[in-house]
């Protein structure tokens, strides 16, 4: 009997959440975390292998379904989750760390992170759009408490804002899902599988365009809030900056992509409706707004993590634009960018955590001369920053180039031109902040650079390696996965 990898992906984090409750010491809790992180990495790797050799897998009467697109998200969540968990072990779990947590808090932290991971895997594997919605709402509930982990006034404000805004957004998304269901029942008659994505895609050509358009409005407002698309992004900088650093990495690297994934699933359905261009229009509007607003806000940021958060908004906008331009190239670019952004941004958040520890502040005005004062961290920040700004040979350059060329070649020249302007602005803002942080004399004494902490460096190493490798050469299995995902969307 083949091993049910699909199910294991969901069971492992739940089991971890159960197991960590029994941890008697902080070391035991850390051990559980490392075990879960590695186990999840392995399970996802095996699942992806099965996926690449056997094709789309479905299980439990079509309730769970994994195709190449889900595979991409699984990969992202697994990599980001692995890095973030390993980093957490040093950041919160190690005794002597400035953020050291007492055992009960540490246990609860790990439990919530495991639940957060569980809900994100559920999103990736759900076939039923209702279940997908439940997964996304679950991510909000699990991560809201993580965002408020420090329980300071600012953290509580940020997490309440996050909880309410995202919940409201998701209520709208639920309404959109319901309308989609109505459209599907209208075509297929009542049964039990109308909300299944596989069913919706196959009957897509018959769905009523008027109803789907109404559904889209609600779905975009809902999932768009969660994905951090401007102007619905207002929760994002607060939540990202107030959460503990490993959680910020999870939010930016994994969670935003889960919401974007939901939109891509909807997009795939509407692509089947003949002559229906509303999804592309929505993506275009939200995408342009996001890249421009974020690029402008990047200039005025004073907080390191808020800077990274706004860059996430910008990159979500770029992905949305890639989807708006469409076609095989645009889609490939968008999905590729999803992956690149996840890896790069996670690495940067983790580096920024180290930098903030070394400089004892997150304030951009006060961090200066990092290359001199903390050469190791500074060098990593330089690498990550260049990657994020989209400098070749880093992978984000390639995906942005693909999206731009798709835009210009598909007759969306104006939009692509605007996107180019925004990219240049964002590049300017990022490099301006980077030079200020890295060069010059350090304004104040830095803490001695954190000694090579095994777990944190491992976590950081994983994502940095992925980010760099992606830019230099696209490994064959990965390219196969990406092409498969494009196939899934385009049909």
């Amino acid at each position: 009997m083949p091993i049910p990898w699909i199910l294991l992906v969901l069971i492992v984090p739940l089991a971890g959440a159960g197991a960590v409750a029994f941890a008697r010491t902080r070391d035991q809790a850390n051990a559980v975390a490392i075990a879960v992180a590695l186990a999840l990495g392995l399970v996802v790797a095996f699942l992806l292998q099965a996926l690449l050799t056997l094709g789309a897998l479905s299980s439990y009467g079509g309730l769970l379904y994994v195709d190449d697109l889900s595979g991409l998200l699984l990969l992202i969540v697994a990599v980001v989750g692995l890095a973030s968990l390993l980093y957490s072990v040093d950041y919160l779990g190690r005794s002597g760390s400035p953020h050291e947590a007492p055992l009960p808090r540490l246990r609860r932290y790990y439990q919530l992170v495991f639940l957060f991971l569980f809900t994100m895997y559920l999103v990736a594997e759900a076939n039923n759009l209702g279940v997908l919605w439940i997964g996304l709402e679950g991510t909000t509930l699990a991560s809201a408490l993580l965002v408020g982990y420090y329980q300071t006034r600012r953290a509580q404000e940020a997490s309440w804002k996050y909880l309410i805004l995202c919940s409201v957004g998701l209520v709208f998304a639920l309404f959109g899902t319901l309308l989609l269901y109505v459209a599907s029942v209208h075509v297929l008659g009542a049964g039990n599988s109308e909300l299944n994505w596989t069913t919706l895609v196959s009957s897509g050509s018959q769905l009523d365009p008027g109803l789907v358009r109404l559904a889209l409005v609600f779905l975009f407002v809902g999932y768009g809030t969660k994905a951090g698309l401007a102007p619905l992004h207002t929760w994002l900088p607060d939540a990202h900056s107030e959460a503990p650093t490993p959680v910020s990495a999870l939010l930016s690297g994994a969670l935003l992509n889960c919401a974007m994934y939901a939109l891509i699933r909807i997009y795939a359905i509407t692509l089947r409706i003949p002559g229906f261009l509303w999804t592309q229009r929505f993506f275009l509007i939200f995408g342009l707004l996001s890249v421009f607003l974020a690029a402008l806000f990047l200039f005025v940021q004073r907080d390191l993590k808020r800077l990274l958060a706004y860059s996430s908004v910008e990159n979500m906008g770029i992905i949305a634009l890639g989807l708006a331009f469409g076609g095989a190239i645009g889609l490939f670019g968008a999905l590729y960018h999803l992956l690149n952004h996840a890896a790069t941004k996670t690495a940067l958040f983790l580096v920024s955590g180290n930098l903030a520890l070394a400089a004892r502040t997150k304030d951009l005005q006060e961090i200066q001369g990092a290359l001199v004062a903390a050469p190791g961290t500074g060098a990593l920040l330089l690498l990550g920053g260049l990657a994020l700004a989209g400098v070749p040979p880093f992978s984000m350059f390639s995906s942005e180039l693909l999206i731009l060329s798709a835009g210009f070649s598909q007759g969306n020249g104006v939009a692509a031109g605007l996107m180019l302007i925004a990219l240049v602005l964002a590049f300017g803002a990022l490099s301006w902040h980077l030079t200020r942080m890295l060069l010059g004399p350090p304004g104040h004494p830095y803490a001695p650079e954190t000694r090579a902490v095994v777990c944190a460096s491992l976590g950081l190493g994983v994502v940095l390696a992925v980010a760099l490798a992606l830019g230099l050469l696209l490994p064959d299995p990965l390219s196969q996965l990406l092409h498969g995902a494009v196939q899934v969307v385009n049909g």
Partner: protein
Amino acid sequence: MIVLAVQALDISAAIVLVTAWISLIHRRIEALVDTYAIQSGALGITAGLVAYQYQAPDIYVLAGLTIVVNAIVLPWLLRRVVRNLGVSRMVNMYASVRASALAGLAILLVSVWVVGGITPFAEVPSAGLLPISVAVLLIGFFLLITRRKAITQVVGLLVMNNGIFLAGIALTYGLGLFVELGLAANLLVLAIVARIFLERMKESFDHVDADALRALEG
């Protein structure tokens, strides 16, 4: 028989709309919570009628869930929060009662105007309820954005959910058992998470007025 269930749905929709409007004029939090409980109860009974009409076991489950979770457990949780936190019992608002009531009317008119025309589903007899559901959804949203207290924001969210639920039973007779179980569980967890937050907020702010949450801007 079909006629009876459709009419019951219509009346229930009207009750939901009426309670949504009434929730706009409440000045005491308990009254707001009670109104929400009545609204949920009306929805649950409607779901029961629809289940009886179609002899559908999963809709019975849905009806039971709604009555237990939305009409009993959630209001109970909210009342306890109000009592235990010792928050002032008044609903603080950005919009006056009269402005809120008129906004509620405007929301209904806009919903009717925008979605009233979308009726591609002639075979669903209660499709005319779509505008009412949208109106309830938006009234809940209005409640959420114009009330200052964190707890009233939660009630707004729950009213929004009821609007969706109304649309669910009116248009599709439920979303399938599995999804509905998940939705109910989500609502419960939401209430619990909100409660944890409110308790923490009380510790650090001495009150649970979301208006105090203004430190983060830009």
